[in-house]
């Protein structure tokens, strides 16, 4: 990459602020996790992070988070599309309420979700009768994670869809493309980076989520126990090193996944020319 003098100022100021803030508030605190887990010998570290129970909890946490994040993609597109493109009574209210899963304390969300989905709940009862129990199963965990993750995807797509406007699609239509072709060739590819961002964030949040999930999860070892609960469990045993060991595994995994998704996002953005105006 050839460096040349840049017309835009402020890189050094903003970059140092960013890196400084990250170091101060994020990186230094997180190193304590690694440092604490380093008290363990390699063997005990392995025993803590690779016990059958830990592996089962990773499987549930990663699986449910992936399914939930994936489910958030079409749902997020739907909400963003309806909220940006259509005008209907209550649109602004819907726009407002989309953020509510952020505002409610996670414990309240958990209680509310359980009230709705437990086998005695408003929707849980008919479902349980139909042979589809939701609460205390992986389905319940996934549902809670969709609830938590949805705003990320909607909010990531909406500004881009808004900025995109109708013009590119109109151009496509004028040039003789069918509606489907326009959507598939113009709109969706442009939205793809934003969708990926949203999905990445929803996934990341889902992986670490504790408060709203424990109420609906069931928490049975090997079956409905999420990885963050395992961390709590180890803390209750005064096993800081073991708790941070599991945390390090989760952190490393989500860092890698986020990195891959962010690279994919940058790559699709590059390809669709969203950032063509960047230094090339």
């Amino acid at each position: 990459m050839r460096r040349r003098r840049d017309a835009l100022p402020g890189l050094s100021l903003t970059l140092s602020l960013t890196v400084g803030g990250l170091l101060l508030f994020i990186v230094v605190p997180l190193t304590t996790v690694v440092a604490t887990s380093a008290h363990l010998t390699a063997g005990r570290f392995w025993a803590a992070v690779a016990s059958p129970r830990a592996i089962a909890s990773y499987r549930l946490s990663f699986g449910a988070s992936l399914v939930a994040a994936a489910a958030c993609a079409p749902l997020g597109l739907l909400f963003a599309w309806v909220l940006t493109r259509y005008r209907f009574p209550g649109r602004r209210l819907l726009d407002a309420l989309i953020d509510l899963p952020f505002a409610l304390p996670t414990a309240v969300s958990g209680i509310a979700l359980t009230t709705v989905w437990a086998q005695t709940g408003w929707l849980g009862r008919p479902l349980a009768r139909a042979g589809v129990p939701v609460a205390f199963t992986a389905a319940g965990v996934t549902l809670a994670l969709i609830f938590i993750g949805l705003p990320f995807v909607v909010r990531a797509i909406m500004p881009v869809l808004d900025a995109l406007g109708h013009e590119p699609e109109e151009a496509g239509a004028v040039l003789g493309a069918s509606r489907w072709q326009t959507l598939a060739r113009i709109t969706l590819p442009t939205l793809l980076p934003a969708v990926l961002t949203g999905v990445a964030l929803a996934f990341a949040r889902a992986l670490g989520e504790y408060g709203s999930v424990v109420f609906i999860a069931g928490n049975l070892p090997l079956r409905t126990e999420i990885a963050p609960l395992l961390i709590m469990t180890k803390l209750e045993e005064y096993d800081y090193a073991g708790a941070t060991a599991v945390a390090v595994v989760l952190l490393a995994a989500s860092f890698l996944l986020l990195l891959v998704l962010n690279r994919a996002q940058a790559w699709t953005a590059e390809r669709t020319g969203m950032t063509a105006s960047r230094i090339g």
Partner: protein
Amino acid sequence: MRVARFTRTLLTTAILPLGAALLGACAKTGTPSATGGAVEILNVSYDPTRELYEAYDSLFAGHWKAKTGQTVTVHQSHGGSSKQARAVIDGLEADVATLGLAYDIDAIAAAGLTDTAWATKFPNHSTPYTSTIVFLVRAGNPKGIHDWPDLVRPGITVITPNPKTSGGARWAYLAAWGNALGRNRGDSAAARAFITQLYAHVPTLDPGARGATTTFVERGIGDVLLAWENEALLATHKLGPDKFAIVIPSTSIRAEPPVAVVDRIVDRRGTRAVAEEYLRYLYSPEAQEVAARNYYRPTDSAVAAQYAAQFPHVALFTIDSVFHGWHAAQTTHFADGGIFDQIYQPKAAPQPAVVAGTSP
């Protein structure tokens, strides 16, 4: 450009309070406690004692005022027993710790914050009130649950919190184990079989005792809740005496929630006198009445006799007599890879006799 001005105001107002508020928030909050006519102490306690200490704190304030002329303010902090102990170890300035089980105060002592012989400082192993584990069932006891073996009958759903994260759940687990030992002439294999069966009837393990109560009471899930006796009494009184009934099993465990002064803190803050009196006064007849009214079994025999109707006789065994103390119980049953972990081993895998999780 009014928008630009607005955004600029937003940003500048953002920076100003930043420094000021951060400084203010970090301000020296270490209160010099025993100044003149007023003193403040912090009681770090576990979850189910909220109502008890709310009542006791005002009783004690009157007592201390009469005795010394000083006004005492007792601040309360409640949470899961081990979580609270961890907070004290990590710097929460508790003058006294009143927790759910001795193991957690041992952890505070092991961190050097209090004398390891804390249990000898006050009567009854520093336990001013006790409780036990009972069953809470639906009104009229429709499933006919009367004793421990009934819990593992087909079709019975049992609600109990997670012993890994809840002190009360550990007492419940040990009560079940002790009862099974008694029924099987001390055969621990039989006790283990019973515990394994019992937890197969548990659909969800809430992280805390009150979460489990909510699952049972509010959600209407489960046929029986294994609960602290004080919690069961409180829940029935608060949430509807006509909806639930308490079943006293044939045997149960004597749950001993201990108290201790946190030496390091009281010596630094100069609050030893008031902290020690705060715990000593728990044994007075007035305080014992408060405990009984809040559904804890008093240790004072006169008060106990007065409230005998509220606390039916149960054959109680203790953690020391059956489990050789909390340390042994913790290591054998609840530690990583202990028996509780083993009963959740995958069905296919052979049950390892030693620590689980080290196998490949």
